[in-house]
């Protein structure tokens, strides 16, 4: 899995987040807009992997940040997407490293090291049953990556 530099892949902001709308950005590959959008404002990290491209994004809402994770095919068809975060909480992305050809380690929220593994093919998942606390996905029965972590709860008010 290769980390991509901003010159290789970046986002062009089309719409900032407001109370009613999620942010929206064009995906820019090697300086060219490719006609694909992603609901995000900031690209935190991007990778090229066997399955295509893996993007970590945020909304530029520092007080209540969610991490968007998007896996695209080499033709930029969306393969899987998930968000990590919680209401009235926030996170800050830090890339810890890449392991082998399919795994990324990072920190964001919950005081834990998160691990994302890109799967070689779709796997069954139970809708509404998150793989870890704070992870949410659109309604569906399959996934192309799995996220593991042991997020901590807040200790008290």
């Amino acid at each position, binding site marked *: 899995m290769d980390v991509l530099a901003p010159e290789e892949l970046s986002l062009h902001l089309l719409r900032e987040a407001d109370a009613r709308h*999620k942010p929206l950005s064009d995906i820019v590959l090697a300086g060219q807009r490719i006609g694909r959008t992603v609901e995000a404002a900031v690209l935190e990290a991007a990778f090229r992997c066997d399955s295509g491209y893996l993007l970590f994004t945020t*909304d530029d809402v*520092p*007080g*209540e940040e*969610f991490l968007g994770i998007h896996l695209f095919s080499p033709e930029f068809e969306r393969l899987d997407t998930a968000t990590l975060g919680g209401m*009235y909480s926030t996170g800050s992305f830090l890339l810890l490293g890449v392991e082998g050809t399919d795994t990324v380690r990072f920190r964001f929220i919950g005081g834990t090291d998160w691990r994302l593994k890109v799967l070689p093919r779709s796997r069954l998942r139970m809708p509404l049953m998150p793989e870890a*606390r704070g992870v949410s996905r659109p309604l569906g029965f399959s996934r192309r990556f799995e996220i593991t972590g042991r997020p901590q*709860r*807040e200790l008290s008010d």
Partner: protein
Amino acid sequence: MATATTAPAQPATGSAADKDRSAFETAIWLIKVEMGNAGTYMTIDANARIAYTRQIDAMANELRTQALSGRITWAQAAQQAQDTRNVIMEVIRGRSTPFGRAMAQQIKAEGKTLNELIARKVQQLHGPGAQFDRLTGTQQNAVYAEIVKSAGKSNPRVTQTMRGLSRAGRGLIVLSLAMSVYNVANAQDKVAATGREVAVTGAGIGGGMAGGALAGLACGPGAPVCVAVGAFVGGALAAFGMDMLW
């Protein structure tokens, strides 16, 4: 059907039909109580969210106005925006239901410091490698202004979900009220039936809040499943208790 939404008395005879009818009426009665309970939870949390969205927006606008008029510097505005936003968030958490508080506490925050936010905004506005110290005063103020603006934003992912919950919560309350109205309309003593419906539904909601809060204390912060179970059980027990007293 006149007693469909009141806690049914035990059948006088022990026939299977009477037992089935009693079980059915109890289930309908419990559904009515819990619909009112869940609807109230959803509505309170959705209203708290609306208040949060408005308050942080108003806070950012006020700080922007003060900075533009020269009453405070942009640096002070950025610092106050961070601090005030955290205070507002805590106040809103306090206004939320036990379930809403548990949801907010279920994952520990890892926010950025003001200096980290400044560094990030500088990169966004002036490209990689740009340094805050090397910017002009006007450019530095623009960075602070962006931080104030960001502090006034609530995440639309949460706000949209809450908007949906608000609609669902109101729908549940209306359904619960409709069942109560039906029950009163079919009762022989309408005054007594009205008093009973108000008391039982109120007890269900109050019991739900108390049960959720107690479950939150027992399970610790950030345990929404435990709080939901506590709210359900608390609402049912309080409603049953009030119905028996009545």
